[in-house]
């Protein structure tokens, strides 16, 4: 029972983000209780209003504090613990690079080497025949046809997923290596795992029932956490640089996380689907918090309005 309740709000986001905090004026929420007593109001009426104000103030303080307490207890992750910050350049850049068919060719062949080799082949064919202009023209056409065919075969669009992953891993390694040929320093391992996790998550999104793959991705996420935890102990400076580069944050690494159904629901991996069923009691708790949050935001709105009225009155 304890485990379920503790997990309930552990990865839930949305709760805080829905609170409108774009207020330019910081009016204290207790101002929401303010009762404007008309000058010609009778004595008893004024007394009733004053009492009401006092009562409401207490209520507001209690609600605001309860909500604050709840927020402190259920701190959300700063970024997605699996995919990291979506605005991060590292993975966006690698994905762009893999799709760049003009720069890279399949099977790890370099574009400039490809051009040079084909020129050499053409020249060799010319030298072999040493024929007339008509013959030369036909050889040129044949070589051009060959080149076009090779370009289609070696296009990144036509290659398999494995080949794309290999290229992505190579790029990630080159980005993070301490020296030429470094394949196993913790930051390189973390970068490679990040690439693998991103490719794996694409599959998870498309094939929700492929549990084996999901499990594999989950293990990789945990593995990355472990490696980065070690790096934090070993070289803290390098650790903070690495996580900033990978688009992760410290809490994602140091806090407990399991890529379970709660995560898939909270981060909407398969759309707006309810994956974790709550009992009536648990649902009741969630609803209570929602109501509390709604009330607090209402107080804030009302307080802001009252504050403006009071400011106008003073002027």
């Amino acid at each position, binding site marked *: 029972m304890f485990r379920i309740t503790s997990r309930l709000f552990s990865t839930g986001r949305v709760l805080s983000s829905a609170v409108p905090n774009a207020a330019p004026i910081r009016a204290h929420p207790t101002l929401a209780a303010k009762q404007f007593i008309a000058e010609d109001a009778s004595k008893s009426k004024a007394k009733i209003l004053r009492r009401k104000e006092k009562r409401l103030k207490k209520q507001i303080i209690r609600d605001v504090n309860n909500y604050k307490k709840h927020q*402190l207890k259920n701190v959300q992750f700063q970024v997605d613990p699996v995919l990291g910050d979506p605005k991060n*350049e590292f993975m966006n*850049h690698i994905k762009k690079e893999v799709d760049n068919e003009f*720069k890279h060719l399949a099977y790890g062949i*370099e*574009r*400039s*080497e490809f*051009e*040079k*080799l084909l*020129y*050499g082949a*053409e*020249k060799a064919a*010319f030298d072999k025949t040493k024929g007339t*202009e008509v013959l*030369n023209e036909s050889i040129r056409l044949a070589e051009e046809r060959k080149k076009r065919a090779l370009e289609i075969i070696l296009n990144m669009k036509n290659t398999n997923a494995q080949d794309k992953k290999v290229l992505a891993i190579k790029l990630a390694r080159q980005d993070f290596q301490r020296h030429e040929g470094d394949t196993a320093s913790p930051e390189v391992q973390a970068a490679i795992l990040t690439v693998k996790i991103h490719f794996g998550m694409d599959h998870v999104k498309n094939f929700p029932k492929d549990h084996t793959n999901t499990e594999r991705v989950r293990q990789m996420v945990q593995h990355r956490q472990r490696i980065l935890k070690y790096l934090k102990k070993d070289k*803290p*400076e390098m*650790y*903070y*640089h*690495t*996580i*900033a*580069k990978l688009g992760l944050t*410290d809490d994602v690494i140091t806090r407990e996380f399991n890529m379970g159904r709660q995560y898939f629901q909270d981060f909407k991996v398969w759309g707006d689907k309810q994956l974790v069923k709550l009992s009536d009691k648990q649902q009741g708790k969630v609803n209570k918090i929602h109501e509390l949050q709604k009330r607090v935001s209402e107080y804030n709105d009302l307080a802001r309005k009252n504050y403006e009225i009071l400011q106008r009155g003073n002027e």
Partner: protein
Amino acid sequence: MAKQNFIGLVVSQGKMAKTVKVRVQGKVYDKRVHKEVIKRKDYLVHDEGNLCKEGDIVRIESIPKISARKSFAVAEIKVNKGQQFALYETLGKEKVAQEEKAKLESFIKEKQQFESVVTQIEDLRKLDQIANAYQTQPNADRAELLSEINRIKEKWNIKSWPSEEPLLDLKINEKEKDIRELKLSMIVDKIMSDEYTAERNQILSENSKTPVEDLKKHTQKNIIRKYVLDSRNEIPFEI
């Protein structure tokens, strides 16, 4: 009487103004189980300058009570690990931003390199065509063709056309690796043999602090290997 003093770890910071939570750990003898057990207690501690960060180890000192739960203040920061980490975090972010800029520049450079290769190949092709025209078409303007040929030759530093030397350097044709690297095992075995004992001992004494007699055979071999791989070092025989 001296003021009450504790040493503890900052576990929470930034939630309350000028206040941090400090965890103090100690051992207490438990009468029921007859052994020492670890006891922890969290104190709310006054931190006037908001200096502490999570992870710092601090010494706290008793002060007259200033609020319901605060009767201690931070006396000194013993290990500023948390502050260091916070600094590393900002430094890391700055470094990443700089690297992004450098990467953009390197992209442009790479692109220019590739474009230069493509233009070189196009020029070579043109050179072929002109040379062919020079031979086959007798009524073409020879001077113009010649000047064009010379221009391309000068641009890419070609001495003669058709040339025997390689014009484009391919990765496959790259110069063979250093001969020492290729014949490494042969060279090391030869130095390790009895024939070169004197030379070997000299190399070992120069490259290791421990006396030669105390070095094990595999250690000797490793030192020799390192010595051979450095191309500045001389080898006692011809390869």
